[in-house]
């Protein structure tokens, strides 16, 4: 299926030869002469005629052999949400599978390179594909949300809400679809643990909150220390800038401390 997809973006360029050309990444460059024709041919998706033989299909998990010994395989950047928003659903669907195949290929190549003690060229390609796929999913969700909001007044997403778990911690509860309404579903009523309590949980919460508080306290101390060290190293540092950067630190007070004073003799008037 996917080679059909690849073909359809390539009809103008290749009539008989199926060159592998994915919509992985987009350059910002000017358009080469030949691709003017490619624009019109997007709709004329060729029918998948020749089934590839078995070992070729397996080799689709691997990169083109000419890239195997390369030190650098250059590609453009990832797809941006704004570029995906102007594409039809059909093209997004095709692009998703192209990206998925590319990701499979890249992950296989990375694993294989690790296995064979080779350098995997340009590992950022994996991240570029991942960013593209995330953006694509965002765009599809946006469209679905718009439809559902218009038709039903709800987002159509899986309902979820914030609640406390048995340990008394806030967590997201993702709802599930049930055949029975909640009051009839005795199994579900029995299985759910509403609320929290007990001495052990309260003890745990006390210690957990202390831990969270310590993280906050240490961060505050760290920024205080940082300001002192900056002042010690640069006695004439811009105080306004420091105040803006470290708004939680009392800088005027810190300036008078011994730690913030550098190893120099202060000028005394008179």
């Amino acid at each position, binding site marked *: 299926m996917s080679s059909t997809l690849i073909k359809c*973006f390539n009809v103008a360029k290749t009539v008989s030869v199926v060159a592998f050309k994915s919509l992985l*990444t987009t350059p*910002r*460059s000017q358009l080469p002469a030949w691709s003017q024709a490619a624009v019109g041919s997007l709709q004329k998706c060729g029918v998948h005629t020749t089934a590839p033989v078995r070992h070729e299909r397996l080799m689709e998990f691997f990169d083109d052999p000419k890239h195997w010994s390369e030190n650098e395989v250059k590609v453009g950047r990832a797809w941006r949400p704004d570029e995906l928003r*102007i594409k039809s659903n059909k093209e997004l669907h095709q692009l998703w599978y192209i990206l998925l195949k590319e990701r499979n290929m890249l992950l296989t190549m990375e694993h294989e390179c690790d296995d064979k003690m080779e350098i995997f060229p340009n590992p950022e390609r994996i*991240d570029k594909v991942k960013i593209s796929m995330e953006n694509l999913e965002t765009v599809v969700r946006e469209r679905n949300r718009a*439809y*559902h909001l218009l038709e039903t007044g709800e987002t159509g997403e899986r309902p979820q809400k914030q609640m406390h778990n048995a340990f008394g911690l806030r967590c997201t509860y993702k709802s599930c679809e049930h*055949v029975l309404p909640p009051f009839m579903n005795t199994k579900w009523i029995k299985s759910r643990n509403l609320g929290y309590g007990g001495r052990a949980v309260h003890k745990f919460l006390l210690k957990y909150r202390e831990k969270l508080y310590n993280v906050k306290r240490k961060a505050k101390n760290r920024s205080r220390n940082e300001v002192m060290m900056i002042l010690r190293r640069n006695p004439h540092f*811009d105080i306004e800038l420091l105040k803006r950067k470290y708004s939680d630190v009392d800088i005027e007070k810190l300036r008078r401390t011994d730690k913030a004073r550098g190893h120099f003799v202060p000028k005394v008037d008179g």
Partner: protein
Amino acid sequence: MRITQYLTSKLKNFSNLPKEYIERSKKQVYWKTPTERGYLPSTVERKRYRYTTNRSWTGQFRQQNMPGTMRRKVFVEPVEDWSFFRGDRIEVLVGKDKGKQGIVTQVIPERNWVIVEGINWHYRRVGAENEFPGIIIKSEAPLHVTKDIRLVDPSDLQGTEFEWRFTEEGEKVRVSTRSGRIIPIPETNNQTHDYKTPNAYIEREKDTPAAVVGEITFQPKLSTFEMDIMEEMGIKEERTPAKSYWY
């Protein structure tokens, strides 16, 4: 320099690598809770890295930040607006090259450093053995942006102080305080590892042509993504779903 500033600053990412990759490549996770029920998500990982002239996605960087090792903290003073870009002509204020001018070739904002072409050479002797004296490798040492350098005024090619001001069009520019002339940000700042200008980018095998990217094929339609794809593929769904409850 902080990340919010980095985003608003006019400094361009020369490596042209996605941020996700840069973060992923330097990550050192020592321990992580299993992603199962009953575990609070928590990781033990390296929080502080020693940034040097080696970029964070290289092997040298990893060698300088070997897992399990700790190095002394480097205090990097905050810089409000990053003002030194690749291609800038600057004057050196300290060291043996004091008073010389040079062109900035590399910017390392993690340490408030710039590397200037042909300025501040330092020499390393490597490969010395019993008989063999070794070879000398020469490279530029970085210069600190707040203390070691200042910009050069393009009108008289003398070092000058400057400040950021706004033009009437609302553009933020560097202005020499001595002559009042705008010090433009050089075009070299926009160059990346992959191309010199966006127009000069050579399209690769797997790149989508620019016209195909810009083509508008979306037509608003009262259907979800799935409904549209089903219609496209000729899949008919005539069953009515049974009543269900979400809770």
